[in-house]
């Protein structure tokens, strides 16, 4: 990194465009480009450009992992435990080995260590094999005999908390903390199946509650949600003497490569990870995974490429999930709305895994001097959870945003007015203003006021998410003598369309159009890019793309200046030309300038540096920007009080993500966030059979995901919230767009029927029970 003494001062526009933009000075590294003006003054950034691989996607030409079929490829399949908890005493593979179609068999359970020779959930891998066809692999799996000694188990969160419940882990055997996106705090106590608490606090929450004029005290529940990636998890592993190549449906080529090198004791340079088409991850494809390790082990043993792709029931049961949470929230406030205390206690279950908490939503979003949270993980005999679109904060917001609305009602103030009082964010203030106007908040009626059986309501909720950045995030930009421009990074396009955003960034800098930039991604043979999780891809890869393009342009200016008899700093790149600023006719085309390059190509590789003015915090290769990402969503619902069916008719989503790079793609992602949130609110629920531990809806028909006929009108507004923190000032959107939807719908349902639903999903049965229409319930 550059010596800070060599930094120069630049003046950046800062603020929400159209509301208030001030100028603020920032120190920038010497080679970095000048500040970008607001989008209205730009030619390419901030405009709707179709994604670069759109044509490949609509013609079927793009290759997903399961479409990769190297010569001689075998098919891998995993044998999974039918027991929710059992000792594995023997795995007899002899009969399977005799099948000539079987080329490799590996065990997933180490039998030599009794402590580890245990399966703890239905569907846990026990062994895997590779055979010459799917049918052969499937048949051979049935030849493997496993001797299980079933043990007591528990799959229910509440039951698992009881002291007399079956124990998922023997004393001392529970996981101590996991790597990955959410780092579980190490060293927490484990009592039975309950691990924790993970504590956070400021001030004195008990005193704050005692000083309150009003205290709301509520319990809120969220269910286990599964990712339901349309493309199941899978890989094609090709182990060769000279190195390992793995095509894998992943959100993080750079990270998976490291995991592979570590797991299989290979030098990093011998491992290549590739992904082109990537059929959805939502957090679940962030790491190598058990299937990944097995697939590579099979290829190593077989000496042939192996494709191992989960089938849908495996995908639903053992590829990660959003943990369920039961939380109690207490909020104390004075009559004037000022908060005196927020106390949160949560018990969540990520099955055999960790990180079933409620994030930092309640801790961070509102002004309150006294806060305390205690978050517990409860082990159950269920497949491990994983990060899923705004992990923690999504269930956290379900509780907190309902509780804040309940507080507003107790204080007899409008929920928006209360948030004006307690939310310090000026950005969300503007988002509330825009959203309230669009949804027609002023016409909102009292709870349950509609006379007929179909009752309408309007509600809102807010979003908070850290502006994440990966500092270890490289991209190379090249200009060739023929004028072609190329960008290379191992960063992957998981469906967000980051390729065209990179192209726009470079094109803006070089005065070209995005289709003049070839972008090659998803291959660790390129400079190593950031992960696509934590809503950090755009924030991590576009600044180094612009810096690299800018540095190349300065080199090009030197060549062109000689020819134009001008000083390099008199030159500008615009509309496909390199020309002098004052005398545009004195110039040449970009291609003519490129032809002046000595040698074949100019190339610059850059990585993501610090934000201008520094980060709020740095965690290894990851960091968080000083500002947060937000958003406010409003929902309008119609509740049929005779059938219990909730119909979401309209959602207004007002979001911010720094500088919006491409409104077309942003709209897609925000619609996606809203729909995933709506689906979470009303339909989705992983159901485990308490008698067997099996997931009874491990498919896409009984596990309900929102379909096209349940889609509301979605009104998307994206603020241009400039902060002057990087060469592009762009941050992420995927997660912030998901957080507020469910509580906005929940608050709208209350406004419609006047009865509060505090548990997800809000099924027709739950609505009827809440209305007292099911005898014996509610």
């Amino acid at each position, binding site marked *: 990194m550059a010596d800070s003494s060599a930094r120069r001062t630049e003046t950046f526009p800062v603020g929400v465009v159209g509301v208030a933009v001030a100028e603020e000075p920032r120190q920038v590294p010497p080679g970095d480009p000048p500040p970008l003006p607001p989008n209205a003054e730009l030619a390419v950034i901030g405009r709707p450009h*179709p994604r670069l691989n759109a044509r490949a996607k609509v013609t079927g*030409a793009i290759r997903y992992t399961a479409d990769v079929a190297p010569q001689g490829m075998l098919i891998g399949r995993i044998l999974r435990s039918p027991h929710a908890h059992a000792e594995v005493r023997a795995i007899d593979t002899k009969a399977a080995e005799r099948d000539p179609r079987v080329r490799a068999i590996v065990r997933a359970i180490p039998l030599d260590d009794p402590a580890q020779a245990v399966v703890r959930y239905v569907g846990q891998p026990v062994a895997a094999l590779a055979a010459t066809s799917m049918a052969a692999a499937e*048949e051979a799996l049935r030849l493997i005999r496993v001797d299980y000694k079933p043990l007591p188990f528990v799959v229910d969160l509440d039951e698992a908390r009881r002291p007399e419940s079956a124990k998922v882990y023997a004393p001392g055997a529970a996981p101590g903390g996991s790597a990955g996106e959410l780092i579980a705090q190490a060293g927490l106590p484990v009592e039975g199946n309950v691990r924790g608490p993970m504590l956070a606090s400021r001030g004195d929450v008990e005193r704050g509650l005692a000083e309150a004029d009003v205290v709301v005290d509520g319990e809120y529940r969220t269910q286990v949600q599964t990712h339901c990636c349309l493309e199941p998890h899978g890989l094609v592993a090709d182990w060769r003497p000279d190195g390992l190549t793995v095509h894998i449906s992943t959100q993080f080529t750079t990270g998976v490569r490291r995991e592979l090198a570590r797991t299989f004791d290979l030098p990093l340079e011998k491992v290549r990870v590739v992904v082109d088409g*990537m059929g959805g991850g939502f957090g679940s494809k962030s790491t190598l995974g058990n299937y990944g390790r097995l697939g590579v082990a099979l290829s190593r043993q077989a000496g042939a490429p192996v494709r191992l792709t989960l089938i849908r029931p495996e995908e639903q049961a053992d590829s990660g999930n959003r943990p369920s949470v039961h939380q109690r929230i207490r909020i104390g406030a004075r009559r004037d709305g000022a908060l005196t205390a927020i106390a949160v206690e949560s018990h969540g279950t990520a099955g055999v895994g960790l990180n079933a908490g409620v994030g930092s939503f309640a801790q961070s979003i509102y002004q309150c001097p006294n806060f305390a949270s205690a978050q517990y993980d409860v082990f159950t005999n269920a497949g491990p959870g994983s990060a899923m679109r705004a992990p923690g904060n999504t269930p956290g917001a379900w509780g907190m945003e309902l509780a804040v609305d309940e507080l507003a009602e107790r204080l007899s103030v409008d929920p928006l007015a209360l948030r004006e009082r307690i939310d310090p964010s000026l950005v969300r203030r503007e988002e509330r203003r825009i959203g309230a106007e669009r949804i027609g908040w002023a016409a909102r009626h009292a709870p349950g006021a509609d006379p007929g059986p179909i009752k309408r309501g309007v509600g809102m909720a807010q979003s908070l998410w850290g502006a994440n950045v990966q500092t270890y995030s490289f991209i190379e930009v090249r200009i060739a003598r023929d004028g072609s421009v190329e960008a290379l990074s191992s960063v992957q396009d998981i469906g967000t369309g980051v390729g065209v955003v990179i192209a726009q960034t470079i094109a803006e800098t070089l005065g070209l159009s995005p289709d003049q930039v070839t972008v090659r991604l998803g291959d660790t043979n390129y400079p190593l890019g950031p992960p696509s999780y934590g809503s950090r891809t755009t924030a991590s890869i576009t600044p180094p793309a612009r810096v690299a393009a800018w540095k190349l342009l300065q080199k090009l200016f030197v060549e062109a200046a000689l020819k134009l008899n001008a000083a390099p700093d008199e030159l500008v790149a615009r509309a496909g030309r390199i020309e002098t600023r004052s005398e545009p006719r004195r110039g040449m085309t970009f291609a003519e300038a490129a032809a002046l390059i000595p040698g074949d190509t100019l190339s610059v590789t850059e990585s993501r540096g610090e934000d201008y003015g520094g980060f709020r915090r740095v965690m290894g290769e990851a960091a968080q920007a000083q500002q947060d990402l937000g958003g406010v969503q409003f929902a309008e619902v119609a509740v049929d009080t005779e059938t219990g069916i909730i119909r979401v008719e309209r959602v207004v989503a007002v979001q911010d993500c720094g500088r919006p790079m491409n409104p077309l793609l942003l709209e897609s992602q925000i619609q996606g966030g809203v729909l995933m949130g709506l689906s979470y609110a009303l339909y989705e629920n992983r159901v485990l059979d308490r008698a067997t531990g099996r997931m009874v809806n491990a498919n896409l028909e009984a596990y309900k995901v929102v379909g096209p006929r349940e*889609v509301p009108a979605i009104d998307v507004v994206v603020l241009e919230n400039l902060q002057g923190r990087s060469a592009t000032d762009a941050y992420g959107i995927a997660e912030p767009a998901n957080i507020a939807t469910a509580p906005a719908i929940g608050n709208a349902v209350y406004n419609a029927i006047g009865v509060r639903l505090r548990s997800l999903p809000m099924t027709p049965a739950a609505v009827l029970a809440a209305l007292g229409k099911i005898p014996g319930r509610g």
Partner: protein
Amino acid sequence: MGSDEGLSRRDLLSGSVYAALGTGAPNWALPAAAAEAETSKPASAHDIVLRVNGVDRPLKVESRMTLAEALRGPLGLTGTKIACNRGACSACTVWLDGTPVCSCMTFAVEVGPREVTTIEGLAKDDVLHPVQQAFIEHDAMQCGFCTPGMALSVAALIARNPDPTAEDVERAISGHVCRCGSYPHVVAATLAAAKTRKG
């Protein structure tokens, strides 16, 4: 979806799938294999000719091979996606004589002389179908895994109904699952494509 005539895979499997849940067989067993593994040796092979995207493609298939597997495997047409493999998500949609069907629920041997159109056959000589063009312009996709099936379903819709409403489009794609939430842009793109096509 699925064929109206002959043996459908859903008929064949429905009994055995539920039986499997009841008898304690692991419920992630591949449904096809669960039903067929017991009876699959020796596998019977059939010489058939599939007419795919206007070309006759002879191939040898086992009875249990689905059309989706035949297209993706021996015929190399991987644009057809398998996401659930039991007719619940419509990602595998292709046309049989212009009608969308789930190719994962159709045996290759039952296709007969019917014309199969896959996503690779929707564009004609590099000229995109209006639906494909509109999908690009409206960004009617994110991860893209459901996109080939969606495109074929809405292209069939505007062939039979040149002037669809948004509700018509939603009904036409009601069997499709898109986890990324591309439905609103798919509807907008389809309405735009219908307009373009009418000129």
